[in-house]
């Protein structure tokens, strides 16, 4: 139908420059990994440690995925740590009743959703500022957690729960060489999927007569992503296989990347965050969008609560302390704007990993929490400074 395919004339550096803001987070993560690899003489890149980084940060990353939506819409949620503790405690209590893992998980998500809705009503419809509502929520749910747990840990009846956090996915006896077979298979499928997706995307663009970036850059992109997939999965394969939380995280991330990019509600979140009044005049029910965003945050708190309880193998009354700070910092490191309207799921995840890698690396080096705070603070400020500077340069506010 269309006579000619338009190939954009763009040099490698031109393309890199255009995407610099997007790429800078990954570069930062890579650099930090490299620095710690040198400092720890490679210990931080061992299969066991890579797996641990995912497990130890999974609950923060899950929160960051929700938090970034809240930040995009121009709000903040300070209550997430307390809600994690509360829903974690409840999940332990219902699991101990013996109803099984999946029902426990589902019930915890429902409880998260209810808590989220409660705060969301106050924020979206009664117009109490999110900062204040969730500050209240932070105190309220911490208090309720203390009340239901009697301020003492609840231990779990068996080791089933623990599997969510520290278990791994593998098929007994299925190995390829010294590697776990399932990891290798998933790795291969992922790479093939990546290639196929890009192929169809290019074909679709050609069919619609949209302009294309030159093929070599698409190949370069696929190559870089494949290398990343191979690196991570070989680490998993050499240790115990794909960690279960890895799968949970992957599913959560995939769902929210999809929601934010391809669903109406996702785009409305950006529209309301960018300019609430104009969103309203475009016929968007902005209260409803704010409401849904905070409910989503609640659901993810429920999930995070389950994962954290599983990770600790018991529900602690002081669980989730300061998780909100880590989640918020992850979003900002990942390029979200404090004024709303800007931010991505992948950014939040990358930001969370940056913090996780720093924590992990410094622990490996036996550096205490004191210096970890100082380093994390510097990274946060540096990342946000870079972000604001580059945004100003490109006229985005």
């Amino acid at each position: 139908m269309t006579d000619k395919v338009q190939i954009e004339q763009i040099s490698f550096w031109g393309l890199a420059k255009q995407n610099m803001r997007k790429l800078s987070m990954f570069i930062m993560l890579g650099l930090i990994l490299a620095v710690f690899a040198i400092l720890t003489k490679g210990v931080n890149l061992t299969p066991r440690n890579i797996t641990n980084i995912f497990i130890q940060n999974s609950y923060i990353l899950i929160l960051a995925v929700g938090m970034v939506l809240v930040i995009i819409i121009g709000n903040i949620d300070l209550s997430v740590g307390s809600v994690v503790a509360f829903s974690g405690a409840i999940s332990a209590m219902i699991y101990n009743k013996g109803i099984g893992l999946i029902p426990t998980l589902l019930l915890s998500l429902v409880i998260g959703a209810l808590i989220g809705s409660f705060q969301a009503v106050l924020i979206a419809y009664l117009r109490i500022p999110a900062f204040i509502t969730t500050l209240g929520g932070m105190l309220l749910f911490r208090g309720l957690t203390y009340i239901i747990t009697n301020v003492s840990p609840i231990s779990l009846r068996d080791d089933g729960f623990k599997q969510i956090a520290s278990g791994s996915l593998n098929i007994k006896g299925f190995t390829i060489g010294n590697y776990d077979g399932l990891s290798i298979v998933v790795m291969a499928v992922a790479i093939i999927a990546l290639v196929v997706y890009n192929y169809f995307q290019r074909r679709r663009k050609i069919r619609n007569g949209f302009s294309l970036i030159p093929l070599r850059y698409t190949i370069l992109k696929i190559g870089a992503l494949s290398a990343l997939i191979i690196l991570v999965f070989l680490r998993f394969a050499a240790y115990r296989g794909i960690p279960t939380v890895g799968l949970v995280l992957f599913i959560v991330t995939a769902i929210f990347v999809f929601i934010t990019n391809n669903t109406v509600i996702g785009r409305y979140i950006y529209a309301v965050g960018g300019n609430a009044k104009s969103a309203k005049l475009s016929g968007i029910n902005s209260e409803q969008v704010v409401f849904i965003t905070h409910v989503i945050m609640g659901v993810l708190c429920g999930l995070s609560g389950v994962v954290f309880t599983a990770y600790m193998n018991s529900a602690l009354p002081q669980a989730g302390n300061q998780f909100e700070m880590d989640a918020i910092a992850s979003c900002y490191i990942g390029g979200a704007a404090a004024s709303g309207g800007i931010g991505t799921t992948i950014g939040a995840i990358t930001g969370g990993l940056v913090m996780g890698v720093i924590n992990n690396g410094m622990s490996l080096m036996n550096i205490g929490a004191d210096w970890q705070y100082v380093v994390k603070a510097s990274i946060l400020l540096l990342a946000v400074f870079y972000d604001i500077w580059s945004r100003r340069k490109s006229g985005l506010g």
Partner: protein
Amino acid sequence: MGSNDYILEVNNITKDFPGVRALDNVDFKVRRGEIHCLVGENGAGKSTLVNVISGVFPRGDYEGVVVFKGKETHYRSTKDSESDGLSIIHQELTLSPYLSIYENIFLGNMKTRFGVIDWDACLRDSYPLLKRVGLSEPPQTIVSKMSVGKQQLVEIARAISRNAELLIFDEPTSSLNDEESENLLKLLLEFKREGITCIMISHKLDEVLAVADSITILRDGLSVASYDTRAEEVSKQQIIKAMVGRELKNLFPEKDPKIGEVVFEVKNWSVNHPDYHDMKIVDNASFFLKRGEIVSFCGPMGAGRTELMMSIFGNSYGYGATGEIYLHNEKVTFKSPKDAIEKGVGYVSEDRKSLGLILIQDVKTNITNSSLPKLSKRGVLDKEKIRESAEFYKESLQIKTPSLEQLARNLSGGNQQKVVLSRALLADPDIFIVDEPTRGIDVGAKFEIYSILNEMVKQGKSVIVVSSELTEAISMSDRIYVMNEGKIKGVLNRDEATQEGIMHMALVD
């Protein structure tokens, strides 16, 4: 279809705001397929009326009935009116700043397949819409990076994407230059040919007379007159009289310039695009300004006039500005807007909403907040003086507000513009740069603003006006610089400037 086939009938609408009755028993009828213009002074209630019609104010927020296509409306929001075939393009741009053109077009009305956004369809369908409104930007462009004029076209594209039968334009041409306004009016006539009814609010009476089939005039919330231009001859004087309630002899005040020595000079000024660092936006511009002079900068949209002024004003725009600035024959550099202000240069932006006003503060604060040092003693604010100065400008520019404590966001568009101007005037700069000072301002208040600029130059100050209205530039200024594509193409004296001459100079060479 007879000529009395009304697509829209508005009966006995009354709308109150705290302290103001914005609409008082207004009747308003629009025939199917016509272009109906709505005129009136700033704050007359025009925007309020169309907001009532389009459901920005939901049913129940006002008294009276709106009948669209023979049915009484019960809109709860603009979403309802849009799906009913009625779209409004607001006075203040309402695009979502960090989203792309095509996402903005379909915002609130995304194309989906099984609840999933079909980005390809959105992109594909945006091309013909953009073509129809004459916008050549790639649809992926983020709108906050585009000029106000282009954003306006995106809004229009958005409105026509909803298959509207009635389009309402609230001052669509106020942010466009002459050429673009003309294109927009052509677009309106095109819509009319396609059978779409249009309501247009405008302060530019020439364009109203050029396209209107009917004209309704509002004054202080009352509908005072209605003309059918096909049945009777209507003159500009007639409209003005009905608008302001008195005869207005001249549209421009008398000028009696006393021009002195050169006080401000810019030499070889160049500045690059903030994103694309190798793209020149202003190219080697040189100009000067004498004491007591009003100098205008004219040229098509995208000529680089705003960018030139903003980059001079403490590097508020662009990348890698080079060139020299001389103030009273001394070479200076303006490190920041603050630095420029301290050296006696004032600047009023064309984009009042995002750069000019603090919407959640009141009128008094907005007028006085850049002159607070002057209005205080040893760091303590002199409340009395603040009140007096604000009151002075409220009176002299006829800012229509129930009180000085009214929040800026509750003012009508034109009155917000007056507040921004007041603030700059109060700061009392020696060199005053105003970008589109009369955008969206009614004829009466325009006269006041011109008089104030004249008064300033009489006191030995100098004014640079960036204006897209050629008649205004020709009548007001002593010299006119013509710009296009980042270059200064030439300069014309007051007595040799004509509209054709300016256009010619901009486009030739």
